[in-house]
Structure formats: C-alpha cells, structure tokens
C-alpha cells in the first residue's frame, strides 16, 4: 500500500474519532499527533477505526508513542507490507 493511499484513509478515521474543531483538509504527514487533541479514551476509538479500515492489529502504546501523522503512516505501511 502506497503512503499516498494511506493518508486520506487515515484522515477519514481520525476525523470520525475526533471531537475537536480541526481543519482536516490541512492534515499532512508533518501534523503532530498531539495537535489532533485525542484524549486517552478517544485513542481507543482511533485504534478501532484504524484496525477496521486497514485490517491490522495495533497496540495503543505503539500509537501513543508516535509524534507525527507521518510516523503513523509509516507504521501502517510497514504492517501492510508485512501482511
């Protein structure tokens, strides 16, 4: 799976799980995860959404350690390549 294919799908998941007033059209690989305002509970929503969208299994710790959306894209690309 290409990175360019992952980002829009990931944006959809993040947008659906977020309750923050964020301009999602500006989401890029440089966007920091912290700036998306997910709290400790909504991160489980994000994980659920990502697992369903990309058919992968992730750990909350893996995702919460990531600094940017680009790192999350890399993680998903790696998982997709390994599958």
């Amino acid at each position, binding site marked *: 799976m290409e990175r360019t294919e992952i980002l829009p799908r990931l944006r959809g998941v993040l947008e659906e799980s977020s309750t923050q007033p964020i301009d999602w059209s500006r989401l890029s690989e440089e966007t920091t995860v912290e700036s998306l305002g997910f709290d*400790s*509970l909504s*991160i*489980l*929503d994000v*994980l*659920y*959404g990502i*697992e*369903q969208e990309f058919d992968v*299994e*992730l*750990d*909350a*710790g893996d995702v*919460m350690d990531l600094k940017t959306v680009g790192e999350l894209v890399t993680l998903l690309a790696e998982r997709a390549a390994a599958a």
Partner: protein
Amino acid sequence: MSAAARLRTLRHAVEYSFVRLLVAVIDLLPIGVAAWLARRLADAMFVVDRRRRVVAIDNILRAGIEDDPAAAKRLARRSARHFAVVLVETLKARQLLDGKTERIELRIPASIQAVLDDPGAGLLVATGHFGNWEVGAQAFSRFKPVVASARKMSNRFVDRFLQRRKPAQGFRLVPEWFGSPSRYTEALRNGEAVALLIDLDARGEGIKLDFFGRPAATHVTTAMLHLVTKAPLVFASCLRVAPGRFTIELSERIDIRPSGDKGADVRAVLGRLNEKLEEAIRSAPDQYLWAHSRWKYGSWTPPEGFVPVSGGRLGSRIA
C-alpha cells in the same frame, strides 16, 4: 500556605490519625468480631445518612429487585451492613489472604483456566460493586498478576497509607482508569489481568445502556479494550459466603469480534457484561452496593409512599 490550606491539612491529619487507629483496632480483632462491629456501625450510619439510604431504596425499587418500599428498605440496610464488612475485609485483606487458600474457592471454566496457565496471555476481567470486589481482585492475583485502577483520595495521608497496605505480590494499582489506556494494553500484552468495574456512573463520558431495564450512563473503556486488543474477556464475581470467606467465579469467555459498527459492538459487549452482573446481583441482592447513584436520568413512577432522589426532593415516610 493559606489559612484554608492549613485548616485542610489539619483536618486531613486528624482523619489520618482516626483511620490509623481504626485500622490498628481492626487488625487486632478476629474477622468475625470486626465484621460484627462493622455491621453495628453500618446500622447507625443507615439511620444517620439519609441521602445514601434514600438512594439505595430508590435503586432497589428501580431495579425491580423489590416492589415494596418497606422490603426495599430492609434490603438497603442489609446492603449497608454488607458494604461495612467489605471495608473491614479490604483493610484485613493481607491477613485474610496470606497463605490461606482455604478462604477462597475459585470456580473457573476450562477455557479460562487455559488463559490463567499461559503466563503470556492477558485477561480482561470485568466486575461490579458486588460481593467483595476489592478482596476478589487481590485474591485473584495469586493466579495471574492483576492491574486495577484506583481513585486517588482527597486526603493524601490516608491515600498513601491505604495504598501501602495493598498486597504487593501480583497486585498493582494504576491511577484512575481515565488515565492512559496504554497502561492496560501494555499489561494485557505482558500477560497480566486487567480488572475493571463496569457499573461506575459515566456521567457525560459513556453511553446510555440498560441496567436492570433502565438506562444508565456506562463507561465504554472495558468494551473498547476488548474490541481493540482482542484480549479474552470474562465477568467475575467474588461472593462472600462467610466473613472473610469467598467464592470467586469467572464466566465463560465473552468474545465479540469488531464488526465495523463500533456503537453496536460496544453495546454488545457491555450488554453481555450487564446481564452477567444483573444475574450475580439477583443471586445475592444484599451483596450489591445499592447506595451508589447508578441511575441519574430516566423517569419512573415510584410506589406510593416513597419519594426517590430523582423525584426532586429527599425523604418520604418510608425512607
């Protein structure tokens, strides 16, 4: 330090001294005597603490456990006595559990025994304020390390003292579950059991889900952890059969696979858990903490002669 802060510290120091004294007395007494005293103290508190009494009667009637306010009041009193003994047993947990396996009977389905026998397999254990959930979690840690959440007490002296009394072996507390869920996912990955209470009032955080047929604000974390980690999930109860003696029973494994409809999945998981909790409560209704405000919305018509808390004012001739 301001005058208010100094006053608060002084009050906390007095409370701490009282707790230390109380615990020292409880430690010296045999469990039967300590439980008897706790029940008498609970009887006195039941008369004095009108608000909790009315909440308990209100909850019992709403749940349909009793439909007669006088019977509900009798059950509420037994529940208050039970809770007082829970506190005593929890304070004496170390004494009660230290090497004394005869105090605990464990009933585990074969499928879950396999999870307990595998040191790498995590387990999600859901329970409610039924039986002695505190001692149950500590006793269960003999079979698999247990991680549970703890609400920090406002009195830091008492908080620190009580935390130190928790048995260290196999049982650890993490800050209140609104903390990072990665603590729980990490524990599950490390083969530990994560014990969570499912009947806390979620206020605006959770979803409305029927409990005894009436909508109650319910936390979704247990369900989300199961759906995301796929860890085996069970409902557990720790029934007191005598003061300081318990039967811990684990349900068959509850397995709900994510379907893509998150809301439906969460409801399916929590619905199953609520059914199990209701079943346990019906088997021993006096061992449930009815004085906890579980239903904060939803209209109902109380029986004649009883004015519930949600009815707008406290008190009635029956309460």
